[in-house]
């Protein structure tokens, strides 16, 4: 870990401005990912702007019948919130499928959206990695790739976005609210939040330098049955091989997103329209452009089978 300086921001504007103006500065929220990466020198910020004192800790109803989740709301609080459990159960299920109780107590809503990949080569600073050192090459390609991406990836990087919460938010059409260093705000649909990085895998989201997440809003509940099935090699405390978030209505229509397969929660609207035709139709459309490795090609039939199980449960 490199030495760094530290401050606790008092206002969102102050926080955004501090990170925008100081070279190498980063926001610190729960720290469950950033501090680990700093210990390994995968991240080496010169300055941390701690946002924990900002007034982002509430979950509130919105005028249109949805909810607004403050950026600092912990995973534990969000997953246990009565309205989330009642109206957005897919989100509760996704969050509780991730990490451990202790980590969920610390992890924040905004921080979880920014969780970085768990690719083993990204984590080993001896190994070439375009995400850590742009232009360095990707050692995961041709290496150990069982856990890695099958679609939306590139010749520069085959990593995945590893989280669960965002996969559920994707089927709920969440919107990420931010404040920029000049004080303006913007609303970013979660579909656009994570980038398909192409040959710039170091740029994982559309956030600008110094842009601070203030909240995530969920639109009015869409009813239906909510599912989150996370398939992994052990029953807890493991990243997904494949996860499927789905909201299924009585008429078999609905929304579906896949985790553990791409640089972002993977949802393809044209594929989703095929839900009444069954899992095979949805997955073959959603993964039509897939470029898996020998080690991870199983993820595509696994995605199909997992979705088939959800559809069967929805019908029963």
């Amino acid at each position, binding site marked *: *870990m*490199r*030495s760094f300086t530290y401050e606790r921001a008092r206002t969102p504007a102050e926080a955004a401005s501090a990170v925008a103006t100081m070279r190498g500065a980063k926001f610190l929220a729960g720290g469950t990912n950033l501090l680990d990466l700093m*210990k*390994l*020198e995968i991240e080496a910020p010169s300055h941390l702007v701690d946002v924990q004192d900002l007034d982002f800790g509430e979950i509130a109803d919105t005028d249109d019948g949805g909810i607004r989740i403050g950026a600092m709301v912990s995973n534990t609080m969000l997953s246990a919130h009565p309205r989330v459990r009642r109206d957005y159960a897919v989100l509760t299920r996704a969050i509780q499928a991730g990490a451990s109780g202790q980590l969920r107590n610390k992890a924040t809503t905004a921080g979880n959206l920014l969780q970085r990949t*768990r690719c*083993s*080569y990204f*984590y*080993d600073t*001896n*190994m070439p990695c375009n995400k850590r050192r742009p232009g360095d090459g990707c*050692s995961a390609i*041709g*290496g*150990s790739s*069982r856990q890695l991406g099958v679609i939306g990836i590139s010749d520069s990087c085959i990593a995945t976005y590893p989280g669960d919460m965002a996969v559920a938010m994707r089927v709920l059409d969440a919107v990420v609210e931010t404040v920029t260093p000049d004080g303006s705000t913007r609303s970013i649909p979660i579909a656009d939040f994570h980038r398909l990085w192409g040959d710039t895998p170091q740029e994982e989201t559309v956030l600008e330098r110094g842009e601070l997440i203030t909240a995530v809003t969920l639109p009015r509940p869409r009813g239906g049955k909510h599912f989150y*099935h996370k*398939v*992994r*090699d*052990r*029953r*807890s*405390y*493991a*990243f997904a*091989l494949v996860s499927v978030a789905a909201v299924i209505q009585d008429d078999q229509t609905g929304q579906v997103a896949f985790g553990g397969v791409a640089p972002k929660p993977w949802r393809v609207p044209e594929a989703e329209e095929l839900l009444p035709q069954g899992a095979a139709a949805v997955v073959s459309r959603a993964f039509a452009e897939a470029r898996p490795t020998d080690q991870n090609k*199983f993820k595509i*039939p*696994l995605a199909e*089978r*997992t979705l*088939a*199980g959800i559809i*069967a449960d929805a019908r029963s």
Partner: protein
Amino acid sequence: MEFNAPAGQNLFDRAKIVGKSTPRIDGPLKVTGTAPYAAERHGVAANQAYGWIVGSAIAKGRIRSMDLDAARRAPGVIAIVAATEHEPVGTSDYNYAPLFGGNEVSHYHQAIAVVVAETFEQARSAAGLIGTEYDRVDGSFDLASSKDGAPLASEGGSDFAKLGKFEEAFAAAPVKVDETYTTPDESHAMMEPFATIAAWDGPDLTLWTSNQMIHWGKQAMASILGMPEENVRVDSPFIGGGFGGKLFVRADAVMAALGAKAANRPVKIAMQRPLMFNNGTHRHATIQRLRIGAERDGRITAIAHQNWSGNITQKEGENGTLQTPKLYAGANRLIENRIAQLDLPEGNAMRAPGEAAGHLALEVAMDELAEKLAMDPVELRILNDASGTVPGDPDTKISDRHLVRCLREGAERFGWSKRNAVPGQQRDGRWLTGMGVAAGYRAGPTTKSAARVRMSADGHVTVETDMTDIGTGSYTIIAQTAAETMGLPLESVTVKLGDSSFPVSSGSGGQWGAASSTAGVYAACVNLRRMIGEKLNFDADAANFADGRATLDNQSWRIADAGELTADGEMNYGDFKDGYDVGTYAGHFAEVRVDAYTGETHVTRMLAVCDAGRILNPLSARSQVIGGMVMAAGATLMEDLHVDKRFGFFVNHDLAGYEVPVHADIPHQECIFLDTLDPVISPMKAKGVGELGICGPGAAVANAIYNAIGVRVREYPVTLDKYLDRLPPAA
């Protein structure tokens, strides 16, 4: 004391303390966080500095240069010991790759420097400033492509054995299995990392460390640093898991000693988790071919087990064949154990080395044979049980064996009769369910072990031995043994372990620790009884010791009246044991359910019925067996060091990437001990169980998965990607 013949009736046959479930006497220290583990021993040496080990970034080659200037100028740095400025350290009998090897790099994450600083954070930060240039050379990293032409690990012994005419008998057998199984490299992944505080006092070096084998550690450290053994002290009273990874001193101890010398200060190192997997040792991957031929009635006529593994100096591989000569009858036999040269990190002992991996092949092959015979797999094993002498070595007698009882009682308790012999047929909603069985064999060795017992004026007894408690319960069984032998309540015994200034014990490894160390304590206590008898003038060997008194012929003495006394003792074993195979046996049962959609496997129940002679403390022995069962389930379901065959290292080198079972994976376990006694092993008639629990349950889980889904996976771990496309229709 010499143990030259099988034990007759003795005081342990009427024991009141030995053999009774007894909570750990060190339990209160552990649950209150006051048991001092190596890295927490802040008080043992003043002015401790912190060391951070730098690991090699390449698997094989040479260090061209190391730029140390920036690191040396970094805040708080006291000293740096770097490969380019230091001679390679010596070797010992206990490690194959040098722990600090100068400019030559022999495996990934081999230690190439230690940075010593005032704080942990300063040491870590400075280490990141070292710039190292390498000349990388190609290495051999792939077992499958290196195995052809690999030589026998040694001539004869357990590495090559023939009996009868295997080829002819196998060719003639009406029913046969010929399959190849692979097991991956595995990591001990113990909770407590390698950790040492090292301090020099003139020529004397003290290591407060975490180590299973204190005397080996003392010898190895002297050899590695080129110093007299008597100048080395090793102290390791508590160990947070070892599983064989801590049988030997490792880079933490060596680099702490070198760092302390350079810094002229005590130095503490707790190895960073990401270095543990490639810097330390691991269980070697294996390729195992099993050929078993049988008559139509199930009697085995031919059995061959060939095993390949690899290691850095082509020594000491993973010998998966070890249990095969012991478990099943059959007149025509072949054993071959071959070893390839690999440039991966050093493979070495991990819990039940050889047998743990061997059962994953043999016991699945037996399941495959049972299916071909249309026989129940429990009955097949019982039909081919051995009695009298070892099947693969007819000159050797079996000391005491109740495998059939283990299997029969296990089948009864587990509800084995409810198993559907046709695989892929049992459904519970979306789940496919199945049951599996495996037999288990693990040797029950003993080795000489010494102890010292001191009696104080008030009759309190303190035991001192360099035996270790690696979480197994050694403190408690040693206290039970001393209390029983001296006729004292458990509270009147104190146990001190793990210090090389104490008499040399067996140490903890190979499941020999419980049997050996308690026999040594018994020997010392017998000597103390005799000293008391001499002092108070009675024949201690004839007297009965109970309630703090010795009684003989209507006379009675209070033993404390003998005053302060100290007795040493050692148990040695005579040649008579060479004629015996002393083994431990188990019947293992598992039930699983497999999601017909996703292929996820959940273990729902596990049972082990164990035959291991007298069980000294059923409470802690159970803990050992169920721990082994967890590890065995892990080996079957998930544990897998991924080898990068280009760069030559284990890629998933942290606890996020290397998955071991979590609580949710292991919902229900049961362990039953048969009430057997083995008079050949020691006066205690007790055998260890620390490794029996990992020999067989993994195969039982694999067989249960097959029974559930009807797909046989012979490449461990049995993960869903290997059978997903062959699952029965989900609905």
